[in-house]
């Protein structure tokens, strides 16, 4: 795994927290220790041997939702604080310092290759036998969170791909390894990466479409660090679906009667998942899809696009720190027009935003409804 960049981490440790307004961890808790430069300072002092890991330090350094909100105002273009924190945390576990609440999830990950435990394999149900023959071009990777929490989005994705005539496979997924990395079990993360890389290679597919932004980030940014760089092209879900529309493989259809029920008057707001917006740069793609649908009116959150704010789901927070995750989500929910139904393109965001009565749909579900 990449080394900590001490020069950049020290830049942060010595900064007066010029991005603190954008840090959801700080805004939800008020704790200086979890302010960006607060975390940066603790991590820098630990890396320099001036402080030691203990559970409170590890918790503070883990209080990062990996939203990269801090990069918006950061004067240091080479600084990626959430990665510096992630790399800094790696030595804690070998030193016997861990977050006890994540242990059950890590055990699940070791046993079932999913932090959520035994997978009920909805893939079998959705991926019709014909498409399991091998030799498919596309692997559609749903991610553990969809599998565990919201199988309808997987069914919707499979349905859309079938409509578009894509030769795809939904593998019996192993976790991408992100939770292991976030929680400091590098070896487990590496093993999962190796396993995924092997499966992808064996499949012969040339394109990996990821529905979950955190999987995308792990495949594209952390696998190379783990020396498991993938040889197939990796693309995010929204960009891929737009590609299918532009290629004429998906066309608008009259929605089935009653299917737009929860969308009410058709006013929707798209919540940009942080990773799609700030790391992948996927901002216009989902909007192009949504704006093409007659009867839907897109009303933006303030802020949105590259300035979007976290829903509380980043960095496995919903599992490790559920109360803070909920507090972050409720702050974000105030930033949407009050009458809008929400659409997003991330299983964690969907989960996080589902706090109120208002409907929250995934982009794939909208696609399935309005395209043939």
């Amino acid at each position, binding site marked *: 795994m990449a080394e900590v960049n001490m*020069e950049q981490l*020290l*830049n*942060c*440790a*010595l*900064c*007066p*927290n*010029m*991005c*603190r*307004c*954008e840090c959801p961890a*700080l*805004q939800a*808790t*008020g*704790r*200086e*220790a979890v*302010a960006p430069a*607060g975390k940066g*300072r*603790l991590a820098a*002092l630990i890396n*320099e041997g*001036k*402080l*030691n890991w*203990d559970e*409170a*330090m590890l*918790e*503070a350094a883990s209080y990062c939702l990996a939203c990269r909100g801090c990069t918006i*105002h950061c*004067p*240091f273009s080479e600084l990626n604080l959430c990665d510096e924190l992630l790399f800094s945390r790696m030595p804690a576990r070998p030193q016997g310092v861990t977050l006890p609440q994540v242990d059950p999830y890590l055990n699940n990950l070791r046993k079932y290759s999913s932090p959520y435990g035994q997978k009920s394999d909805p893939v079998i149900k959705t991926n019709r036998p014909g498409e399991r023959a091998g030799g498919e071009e596309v692997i559609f990777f749903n991610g553990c969170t969809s599998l565990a929490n919201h199988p309808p989005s997987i069914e919707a994705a499979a349905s859309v791909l079938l409509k578009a005539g894509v030769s795809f496979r939904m593998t019996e997924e192993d976790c991408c390894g992100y939770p292991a990395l976030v929680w400091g079990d590098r070896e487990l993360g590496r093993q999962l990466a190796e396993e995924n890389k092997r499966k992808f290679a064996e499949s012969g597919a040339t394109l990996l479409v990821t529905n979950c932004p955190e999987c995308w980030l792990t495949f594209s940014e952390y696998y190379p660090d783990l020396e498991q760089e993938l040889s197939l092209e990796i693309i995010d879900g929204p960009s891929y679906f737009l590609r299918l529309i532009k290629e004429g493989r998906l066309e608008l259809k009259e929605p089935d009667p009653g299917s737009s029920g929860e969308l009410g008057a058709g006013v929707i707001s798209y919540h940009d998942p942080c990773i799609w917006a700030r790391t992948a740069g996927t901002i216009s793609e989902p909007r192009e899809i949504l704006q093409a649908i007659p009867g839907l009116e897109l009303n933006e959150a*303030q802020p949105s696009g590259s300035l979007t704010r976290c829903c509380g789901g980043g960095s496995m927070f919903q599992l490790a720190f559920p*109360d803070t995750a909920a507090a972050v989500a409720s702050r974000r929910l105030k930033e949407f027009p009050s009458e809008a139904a929400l659409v997003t393109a991330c299983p964690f965001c969907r989960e996080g935003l589902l706090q109120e009565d208002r409907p929250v749909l995934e982009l794939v579900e909208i696609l399935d409804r309005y395209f043939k």
Partner: protein
Amino acid sequence: MAQDMRTVLQESRVEQAVMDRYAAEAAKIVGENNISANQADLLSACRDYWPANSIWMREGVFPALPQLVAWPKTTAQVSKLLALANQEKIPVTPYGEGSGALGGVVPLRGGVTIDLKLMNKIRVLDERNLLVTVESGLNGALYEEELNRAGYTGGHFPQSLRCSSVGGWLACRAAGQFSTRYGKIEDMAVSLEAVLPDGTVFSGRKVPRTATGPRVDHLLLGSEGTLGIITSATLRIWPLPEKRHLASYTFEKLESGLEAIRLFMRAGTRPAVVRLYDGQETGNHFPELGDKRCALILLIEGNARLVDAEAEVIDDCVRSEGAESAGAEHVEHWLEKRFNIGVASMLFQKGAVLDTIEVTTNWHNAYTTYLAMQDALLGVEGTMLASGHYSHVYPEGAALYMTVVGFPGGDKISYYKKLWQTAMEACHKEGAAFSHHHGVGLHRGLWMTDEHGSGLEVLKKIKDALDPEGIMNPGKLGLEEVQLWQK
């Protein structure tokens, strides 16, 4: 397990049994999750952006540690926390966002640090009366963002906008970059709600002006946590400006620039931003202008017709002093870069010491104070650069903002103390006031007798009356001597 921390300014600590008792009660007041005595929280709430803290951070030492941090969410909780601390004689340090530049949040005698960040709501937006009532822990940028959404501005843009709180502004008498039009924070503060050490909650009337005796709530303005805790404030707001006019000029001499500003302020114009840089800073901030001339940056905003008229008057005044127009692009550049202070981190990392010292002058000594302070700072061995600009102006004078960078060979703290000693002496000799907006904190306390004369005794009497047990932010504002931080 607690780790051994070296502290350099810790004067004393409260007996642990007393703190444990307090923590147990505090947990009942704010909830178990809203207190902490873990090392990560104590180490993080012990410091602000005082450069001495950055020097110590590189050495792995801490100024002084609190023994508990509490995060109240309501005024009633603050009241209970304070009353209890008062009863137990536990020192209390209010904490906003820790952007203070002078060690104001360093808990010299341990005790409890009360972090206000969870008091972060806008309580009332009163559009008719152009007032907003806001809790003190709200972050500056989020405050402005929320006002903007409703079509208003708070008009307060310190460079620390994104890293400071409303309460910190009020407690330090902060100034924003747009202060010439909108005023300093004390000009925006119509009334404050505050809690005294004995738990008394009081607030002032939310009316434009009163003549019913001194405004006791305004006593808290600039009190830097030594008298009580500001829990909310009613501030003036403005509709978002209809028009913005940007202009920049250059002068051959700094004095001509100062004279030009004096003239347009005397004529009654109130541009929002007025910044006049010496040659060195002109070269640093606007390389295309070189370092031979002095740049003046202006931003005028508000009602479109008024803006046009002000721009015309100002143009006449500055040209009468030999200004050359340099266009709007330098102001745009400044607007874009005005919150970027990355260079400070890099310099500290490379072993440099950097600080900014802001003082207030009248027109008669605005230039001579600059010369005297620059001389003084450059005279300290190790100083590489001492430059200045005027950042806030008034009909009667201007704030002078000096920046100093040094690479001291030996002990950095000794060098740092020398810088301040000589700069403050020069400022005093010129008759300027010791601070325009950063406040006093711990460090400037050393010069408060020179600043206030017999007024300091009056201030001490007020402190004794409101805080007889002396629990509020001990050692700050020059109200008592701090043994470990002497000249």
